[in-house]
């Protein structure tokens, strides 16, 4: 949903084109029987139209949640998301559900049971299709009249939340450790690690944030177990509010070539190499490269094995 409002990407942005901007994410709003946390608030200021978006990665609609979306009043969202109203006149609000195309039927059934009539966008690998109720904004109705082609996956502005699987945190925590390591620090707390690994942490409420911190803590522990030559996990104590990861070695202490190799070894320990398609003529061309290199040896700077380029980087 955020992607559909992101300007300047390869992914289409029909909401941005219609004049909407993303005004908030994970915005809690109190309704008569509880609270609903709106995944994305989209706002069209020149018409005072608010879309309260719920993004479903799974198949099930929570009926209570859907009913609460139906209870939302525009001005509640204006206040909760600190919207700036510049045009005099009524404010309008419409809920919007976005789901994966394979979950569409279940989502439509769930919305039917809850009595919420709202537009539903079904996201597939190649296109996005509009189902269920029409958009009250005629520009959006037109924008989604035909399936909207998409060139690939949308931007990952919020790559994980507190319900994401543990493995999703491993791929975020290790780069955060490596970034800290490159600054030659001796250790990093799990809290600092979480802020580094999850730039969107501030989006979440306290309970979700604590669950995210716990997941980061576990991921840090796993990173240290996988690579004890580089990381040591020190658990929380009476005098230490958060666990800490201590750096056993620093690539930055090595000479240039050794430094690159240490960074590469951290990646090797952590992950499988990317699947690689073989190009049949590579070996033959490598032989050709050797011949050219031999021919030019008298004139060229020796090859620097530390560069992407086969010939070094301009002799810098």
């Amino acid at each position, binding site marked *: 949903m955020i992607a559909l409002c992101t300007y300047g990407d390869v992914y289409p942005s029909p909401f941005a084109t219609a004049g909407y901007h993303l005004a908030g994410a994970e915005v809690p709003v109190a309704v008569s029987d509880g609270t609903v946390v709106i995944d994305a608030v989209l706002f069209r200021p020149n018409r005072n139209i608010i879309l309260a978006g719920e993004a479903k990665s799974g198949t099930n609609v929570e009926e209570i949640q859907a009913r609460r979306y139906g209870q939302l009043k525009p001005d509640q969202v204006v206040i909760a998301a600190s919207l700036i109203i510049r045009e005099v006149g009524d404010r309008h609000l419409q809920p919007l559900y976005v789901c994966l195309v394979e979950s569409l039927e279940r989502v439509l059934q769930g919305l039917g049971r809850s009595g919420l009539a709202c537009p539903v966008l079904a996201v597939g690998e190649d296109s996005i299709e509009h189902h269920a109720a029409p958009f009250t904004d005629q520009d959006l109705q037109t924008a989604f009249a035909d399936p909207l082609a998409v060139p690939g996956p949308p931007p990952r502005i919020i790559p994980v939340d507190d319900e994401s699987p543990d493995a999703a945190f491993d791929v975020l925590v290790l780069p955060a450790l490596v970034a800290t390591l490159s600054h030659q620090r001796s250790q990093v707390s799990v809290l600092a690690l979480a802020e580094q690994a999850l730039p969107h942490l501030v989006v979440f409420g306290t309970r979700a944030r604590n669950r995210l911190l716990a997941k980061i803590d576990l991921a840090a522990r796993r990173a240290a177990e996988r690579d004890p030559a580089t990381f040591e996990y020190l658990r929380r104590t009476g005098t230490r509010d958060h666990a800490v990861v201590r750096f056993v070695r620093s690539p930055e202490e090595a000479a240039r070539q050794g430094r690159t190799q240490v960074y590469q070894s951290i990646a090797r320990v952590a992950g499988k190499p990317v699947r690689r398609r073989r190009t049949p003529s590579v070996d033959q061309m490598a032989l050709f490269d050797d011949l050219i290199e031999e021919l030019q040896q008298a004139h060229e700077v020796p090859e620097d094995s530390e560069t992407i*380029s086969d010939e070094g980087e301009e002799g810098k």
Partner: protein
Amino acid sequence: MNRATLADDFALSTRRAPWKTFVLEAHAGDDVADALNDVFGPGRVRDTDDVHLHEVVDDVNFVVDHLDDRFWSLHTTAPTSVAAPFLKGIVESRRDLDWMWLPSDHLRGVWPGVSPQWLATDFTSGRLTPPTDEVADLKLRVRGRAAESVLQLVESKYSKAVSFSGVAINVADDDLGSVAEAISRDGRFVATGDDFGLHQTVVRRVVDRYRGFVEAVEQRALRWIQFPDGGAQPVGAPLVLRFGRSIPDLGLFLEQLFSAREPFRLWGIPQMAGDDFAEVEAVDLHVGQQLRFDVTPDWLRVYLFEGGCGNTLARLASNLQHHFDGALSIVDPEIDVLLKQHAR
């Protein structure tokens, strides 16, 4: 030592040997003198009459002009073969200093109305792609008034393999005088002439054009504005580099791009999320910052986060121009204009 004596030194020294100005991008904080002491070591940095000029007395002597507190000019008359490796050692060992990484078009037209007298292009696909490309390596040096026209001819057929790495121009002004300048894509200026002010103006124009690009990129960095009662508004967006050619072997490309090697120095473990799509949580080891990438054969999406340095994207774009696609563009038209701007 002040700017007047520096100008005298320029006029005197360039009769014997060219003047060199290296531009470094610095994140030094408020006290530049302290930062210089940290960079070069205590006792090697001397004050001058001007608070924005410092002398460095080391294996190579420099005068550091930090009137622009982000893009420092390091002036020296030492040979480039000595000064460049010295600075390279310093830049590589720090996270708060970097080179300028001029996009190809920034070198195409440096001064309005002045045609280059010499142009260099340098395209080396190296390890990013299998060496079976239509043009895997292309290095050209063209000297003379028609230098630009010659390269335009090559570019009309092989634009993806044309990426400017150096330019030389003669700039003359009735009031200011004249300078001859040779400029490299990493912000190295070699000059001779009779007016230091004109030399500095040439440097400043190149830096300002580059700064415009880098700062616009930084304004796109993703950040979150928290609401008082929960939730937040995201500001900024990732930037997408669109290639003029498809990546022939995505696995090989990713393996090399995120191998922590020069010149990209990107560390990451690509996760294939389909045959033609990879997600990478990466670290820019030049500055020690975390980045996120989505990569397909036809485009690459870069997420820069709050506090991230625009130089990171400039470095990536410039190096991809030299090692993969000299004709790449940025999908966001406002940033693309700044990537491709040059004086006419």
